[in-house]
């Protein structure tokens, strides 16, 4: 292989990994909620849109960036309250699949509501993340991607620290382990759910800002968010590191397949490569790469 080809290969991989970071950010929200409440939150993608639209519109109307982000954060926390009250509480103790379908309903509700309130066009978001290209030796890297990767790393570190060291984090882990046991030692489940949905909302906000700055805030975000599903499957539903590694694998894999396989069997592989990869992994490891082993009893 020529040196030039090698550089190109590395650039493709890096570009893929950066896209993977974005998938990971969305997948992280899924994992948080699934761990703490056993709910497969299909609405995470819609929450990304729901969080990003107020930010971009408020900035457009002349609100300072920090205030717009704070307002969006407040909206997401409010949303967590509303969802807990109107969806989770009436459906407590229902089967997981019913809750999954309920979040499908939430998805559509949020998508309609967000676009009705804030508008349904493509909005450009610029909050001043540096975008200058960088050269590492011969390899061209986008400065924006680096900032995003650093931000994502910080976010994950913060989340892990929160889960491992704080009292609330300990309560969240207890609930994730066993609802009933947690409740019987006095952990209020309803509060925990609100907290965890708020955190997922804030993660969605960050994902929305990052994504919006890269591709513009628009409805199509919710479709790209569907890509987070194969990421979850690869990483396992209950693993935070899994979400990150899964995202990186999917991101790099689909870019590589598009660049090297695409010309052979036709373009557009990106649309389904991740899903097929996930399906094949599922056939061999039903719990994903990092998930806990599923033990079933009658």
């Amino acid at each position, binding site marked *: 292989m020529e040196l030039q080809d090698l550089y190109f290969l590395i650039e493709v991989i890096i570009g893929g990994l950066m896209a993977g970071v974005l998938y990971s950010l969305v997948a992280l929200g899924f994992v948080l909620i699934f761990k703490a409440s056993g709910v*497969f939150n299909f609405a995470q993608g819609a929450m990304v849109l729901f969080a990003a639209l107020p930010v971009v519109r408020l900035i457009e109307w002349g609100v300072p960036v920090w205030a717009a982000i704070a307002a969006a954060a407040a909206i997401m926390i409010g949303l967590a309250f509303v969802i807990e009250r*109107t*969806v989770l509480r*009436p*459906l407590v103790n*229902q089967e*997981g*699949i*019913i809750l*999954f*379908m*309920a979040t*499908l*309903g*939430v*998805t*559509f*509700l*949020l*998508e*309609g*509501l967000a*676009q*009705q309130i804030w508008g*349904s066009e493509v909005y450009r978001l610029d909050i001043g993340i540096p975008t200058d290209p960088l050269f590492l030796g011969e390899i061209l890297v986008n400065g924006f991607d680096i900032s995003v990767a650093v931000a994502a790393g910080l976010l994950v570190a913060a989340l892990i620290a929160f889960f491992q060291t704080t009292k609330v984090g300990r309560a969240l882990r207890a609930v994730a382990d066993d609802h009933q046991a947690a409740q019987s030692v006095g952990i209020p489940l309803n509060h925990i759910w609100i907290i965890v949905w708020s955190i997922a909302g804030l993660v969605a906000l960050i994902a929305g800002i990052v994504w919006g700055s890269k591709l513009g805030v628009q409805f199509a975000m919710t479709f790209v968010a*569907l890509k987070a*599903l*194969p990421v*979850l*499957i690869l990483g396992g*539903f209950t693993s935070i590191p899994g979400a990150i590694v899964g995202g990186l694998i999917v991101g790099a894999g689909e870019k590589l397949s598009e660049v090297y396989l695409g010309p052979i069997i*036709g*373009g*557009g*592989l990106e*649309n*389904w490569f991740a*899903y*097929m990869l*996930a*399906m094949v992994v*599922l*056939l061999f490891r*039903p719990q994903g790469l990092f998930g806990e082993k599923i033990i*079933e*009893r*009658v």
Partner: protein
Amino acid sequence: MLYREAGQFKASYAADQAIFPIAQDRVLMAILLVVAAVVVPLTATQYLYTAILIPSLILALAAIGLNILTGYCGQVSLGTGGFMAVGAYTAYNLFIRVPELNLLLVLLAAGAMAALVGVIFGIPSLRIKGFYLAVATLAAQFFLDWVFARVPWLYNYSPSGSVGVPDLYVFGFPVITPTQRYLFILAIVALMALVAKNLVRSSVGRAWMAIRDMDIAAEIIGIRPLQTKLSAFAVSSFYAGVSGALWAFLHLKSWEPAAFDINRSFSLLFMIIIGGLGSILGSFIGAAFILLVPIFLNQVPPALGIPLSTATISHLEFMIFGALIIFFLIVEPHGLARLWQIGKEKLRLWPFPH
């Protein structure tokens, strides 16, 4: 007073196992069929046919298919649109490559091909379940979307990627005007609904439901998960395939892969949730309901003097569907079909409530 089974004795096993054990139900069904087959063609307008009757019948067929898989066998699928596309494109390719083939055979082949593809994508269901399976069926949806958009042979090298069919004939009879199309579709849908109703009452259907309720327990009492799950995928995809072929040939007439994208899968899932999971009747009610809501939103507010923009209407549609899904899951998880059941129970006791 009118609706009660008092005095109707079942004197044979056949009478005991009838689909409609109560005479009033049989009369009601007969009236419904007569209305659908005779009264409607005499009175319906073009608009009623093309906007409501034809699409809701075809989508009801796909909803029955999805209901068999999700409602009866408990395997959530987000890939129904993809299986409909398999049916549509199989039918299209047979139609242009073997033009002398009878339309009914084309439809059968469309269903069979979809069933085959469905079984292939159903294989993961043996190891994975629940949300994992839902994501795996998304793989089917996106992969099939891509195949029909990117493999030129399948759309006969049409430069725009959209394909169409000319006027159709069955045994020399034309299926061209809305009335003819409606009657043809009605016959197929009625027949297939009858088959489905009988399937779910048979040992096959009971095996599906046992797997749905608890697969490990079902396995222990001797139900084979492999055959049961794959048969559910096959039957479900067969229905989706036939419905996809009908949708393309008799409703759209010319179409592109986007007609069978992920939104189609979602709306079918909504139909069976709102209509009723595990109910053939519910599939019909759900399909009609999901089709009527947008029409209602388009017609009623302007008529009341509240003009809504198209964007607002589409957003409202989203919100109403979302809210309805949550509402039904909380208040009536068995959907509209259950309301009908409750109504019948009430009617049996009427006018004396005890």
